[in-house]
């Protein structure tokens, strides 16, 4: 890491899910850990997210999902990232992700799976230890 480099994180809420308290708490915690955090608001489509990744060039994308649509949306996001040649970004999903869905999501390259009750410092450590560049 060159001097002056900051970890840049994109916090997104994909799909029709308006419950963003968790995303805001997370954004704030990552900010306080010295990272540059972009929060894109609610109701993002996979296209929105991938376009933002292209333009902002973050190190990490954190998807906050409480709607149950993770199995439908996450693979689409991963596929579109791949189509655009983006393979050095850590993509994590958290929120309400049932255990039985994790292997499927892992197979598509997603990480994290932090649910309610996770300590914020656990997530901060996770981000710092799993950067892909």
């Amino acid at each position, binding site marked *: 890491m*060159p*001097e*002056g*480099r*900051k970890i*840049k994180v994109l916090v997104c809420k994909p799909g029709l899910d308006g419950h963003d308290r968790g995303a805001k708490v997370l*954004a*704030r915690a*990552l*900010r*306080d*850990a*010295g*990272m*540059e*955090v*972009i*929060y*894109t*608001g609610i109701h*993002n*489509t996979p*296209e*929105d997210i991938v*376009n*933002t990744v*292209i*333009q*902002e*060039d973050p190190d990490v994308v954190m998807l906050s999902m409480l709607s149950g649509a993770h199995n439908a949306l996450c693979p689409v996001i991963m596929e579109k990232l791949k189509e*655009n*040649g*983006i393979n050095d970004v850590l993509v994590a999903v958290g929120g309400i992700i049932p255990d039985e869905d994790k292997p499927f999501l892992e197979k598509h390259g997603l990480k994290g799976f932090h649910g309610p009750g996770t300590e914020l410092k656990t997530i901060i450590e996770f981000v710092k230890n799993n950067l892909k560049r």
Partner: protein
Amino acid sequence: MDYSDLIERLLNNEPRAAARLITIVENDITAAEEIINSIYKYTGNAYILGVTGAPGSGKSTFISTLTKILVEQGKKLGIICVDPTSPLTGGALLGDRIRMKEHFTLNNLFIRSMANRGQLGGLARATEDVIKILDVYGCDIVIVETVGVGQSEVDIFKSAQTVAVLLQPEVGDDIQAIKAGIMEITDIFVVNKMDLPGTDRKVAEISQMLELESSFKYDSNDFSKEFTKIRKWTPEIVKVNSKTGENFDIFLEIVDHHKKFLKETGIIESYEKNRIKNETLQILKHKLAKKVEKLISSNSEIEKYINLVMDKSLDPYSMANLIIKLLGIE
């Protein structure tokens, strides 16, 4: 490092290359030097519009509406949104993008959020470099949104050709309007949220301030004539509604008018010269500061000087002069 591949891709208008180069110039000033060195000859095509104003005056929403209109006109747009870095943790929360959500998928648009990383003045250190990258990327217009400013964060006028300042009704009084700083660097005053009461009062306050300014300005080259007005741009005032897009056509007309004015009066040339002077000065300050820091931490003479200052046989000003001598740039 070799950036020729990325630069090649930037010249082919590839957004990912632009994004990666921006990350590099933000993080590494040595790399920035190398990159700007190779792309500088391709710059100079984009028109740079600065948008500034107090927090909550509606800068992002205003830019969002403006973007929609300009993109529909077929313009390629670059937007740089600067937000503040926490002085305590070094982190930042960049939220301007939320209000520009509508345009995420458009091809003719490149939005980039930047943290100011502690730089005063309303912009980030690398903002000038990012403007150049977006210029080479093929943007017709680059809009720079400053951090929410108070009264004296005026760096934007050194980077932008046209500066629009957003104001809102019922905030501030007429004394705020004649203070120095922001109000002096403005080309276009935009009174946003024109649907709120107090809009016309705000417009009146600004126009009174502008009248004061024009009647008391005199040409400093010719003191014999009293109060000769310098041929210069008189700022225009426009009230708009960023939610409905009302009066944006008038705003864009004024921008065009200002653009023509700069060209016809030849002011654009002196503006360019000043910009180059200013930017170079910034770079020199940065480089010299690094040199001085290095000297102070490594030169044994310095320790002697410090002791002399402690004994009161030398004062800090004289010590600074001695250090300038050591640097050999007297």
